[in-house]
């Protein structure tokens, strides 16, 4: 496969953290302990101008809770008017009917709501917020009522890895078209709580074998995973746009102050979008280059799956060893 920058003059997606502030304190959160200067609206619009000029087609607002910032709607409308496709992920707490209408008016292509269990008490306990579950489910209904496409996200962990089918049924019941079953990242609070929440490599393998079988039989709902370690499963044939982690290849992450990192889970700043030349970052950053050309290390060396998985999730390897090239700790091989 050629160098990614021979094919792409910019990433396809910017995952954009407008603020690390959040009204929840989730057990797995990568960013809850982060602190960072936030930019005024005018500077956020300047960032949109850069992204539009570089023809980045997708922005996904995350966080922190994106709805914490009052100017989210204004910023999204500005980006939409510039031709970008805008989406976001939210815990749903602040997403009432009025907010849903404003999201629709701002041009959001889709809005994702995080729901980790069909058991309200379990979800609320995981999210450390009593009453979170009914408001998250209501948010899905508000989005459906105003005609904004909704998605549902669940971070797979010890609390839900046997119950993902129930989450799919919940999504169906509330008009959701796509469910993301996210892999657990050991960053931030996720690192601190990983002994309690993370699965063993063998449990991850069992989960993916089961979930992929369900996906193959499901036609009424799109089920998505974003875990490159799946590629090492025998018979796995789905072809992504790139092999291995997409971070630094198809996507980059923006911190609240405009700093760019390869992804939200890798705290290495490769430049600032308002202060540095973007092309120099994209084409020449040593960090991005290293992520795009991983070397098989440790048990990856000689492994027949490396050509497909490229060592699995780079963020997880970096979080646990400080080295991109080390094997993904979730790898079962």
């Amino acid at each position, binding site marked *: 496969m050629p160098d990614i920058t021979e*094919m792409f003059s910019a990433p396809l997606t910017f995952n954009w953290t407008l603020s690390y502030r959040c009204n929840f304190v989730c057990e797995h959160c990568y960013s809850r302990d982060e602190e960072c200067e936030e930019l005024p609206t005018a500077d956020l619009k300047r960032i949109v101008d850069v992204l539009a000029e570089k*023809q980045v087609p997708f922005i996904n607002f995350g966080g922190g809770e994106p709805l914490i910032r009052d100017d989210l709607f204004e910023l999204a409308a500005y980006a939409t008017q510039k031709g970008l496709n805008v989406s976001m992920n939210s815990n749903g707490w602040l997403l009432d009917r009025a907010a849903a209408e404003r999201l629709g008016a701002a041009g959001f292509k889709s809005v994702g709501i995080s729901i980790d269990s069909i058991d309200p008490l379990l979800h609320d306990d995981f999210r450390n917020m009593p009453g979170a579950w009914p408001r998250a489910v209501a948010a899905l209904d508000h989005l459906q009522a105003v005609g904004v496409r909704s998605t549902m996200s669940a971070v797979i962990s010890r609390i839900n890895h046997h119950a993902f089918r129930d989450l799919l049924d919940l999504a169906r019941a509330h008009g959701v078209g796509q469910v993301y079953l996210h892999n657990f990242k050991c960053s931030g609070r996720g690192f601190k709580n990983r002994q309690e929440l993370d699965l063993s490599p063998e449990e991850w393998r069992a989960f993916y074998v089961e979930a992929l079988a369900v996906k193959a039989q499901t036609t009424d709902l799109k089920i998505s995973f974003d875990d490159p370690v799946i590629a090492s499963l025998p018979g796995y044939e789905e072809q992504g746009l790139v092999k291995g982690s997409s971070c630094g290849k198809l996507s980059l992450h923006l911190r609240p102050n405009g700093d760019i990192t390869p992804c939200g889970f890798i705290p290495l700043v490769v430049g600032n979008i308002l202060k540095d030349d973007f092309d120099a970052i994209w084409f020449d950053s040593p960090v991005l280059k290293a992520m795009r050309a991983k070397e098989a290390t440790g048990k990856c060396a000689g492994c027949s799956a490396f050509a497909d998985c490229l060592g699995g999730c780079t963020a997880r390897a970096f979080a646990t060893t400080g080295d991109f090239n080390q094997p993904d700790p979730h790898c079962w091989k």
Partner: protein
Amino acid sequence: MPNPRRNPEIIWRIERRRRDEVLRALEAGEDVGDSGTVLLIEKGTMHQLNLVGGMIWERCDGTRDPAQIAAELAVEFAVERGELQADVDEFVKDLTARGWLLDA
């Protein structure tokens, strides 16, 4: 033939740096038929168009018919329009069948 226009559901962009490289290669006499210069994303799947395909795609904005597109490309490549018309017609027909182009 009606004026073709791009399906607005398809995300696309010109890969400028790549296109500049392909243009340089073309001037050097190299075969660039398999070199993508325009990226399309359709329902999560990525496709690439080569130089000529990308230039036709750019012009499919609903304001031009295939004859006008061929005439513009003939100027770009300094050839007779007739040499390009069949390629433009086939491209438009193929992409219309895929649903990537719509009739204006």
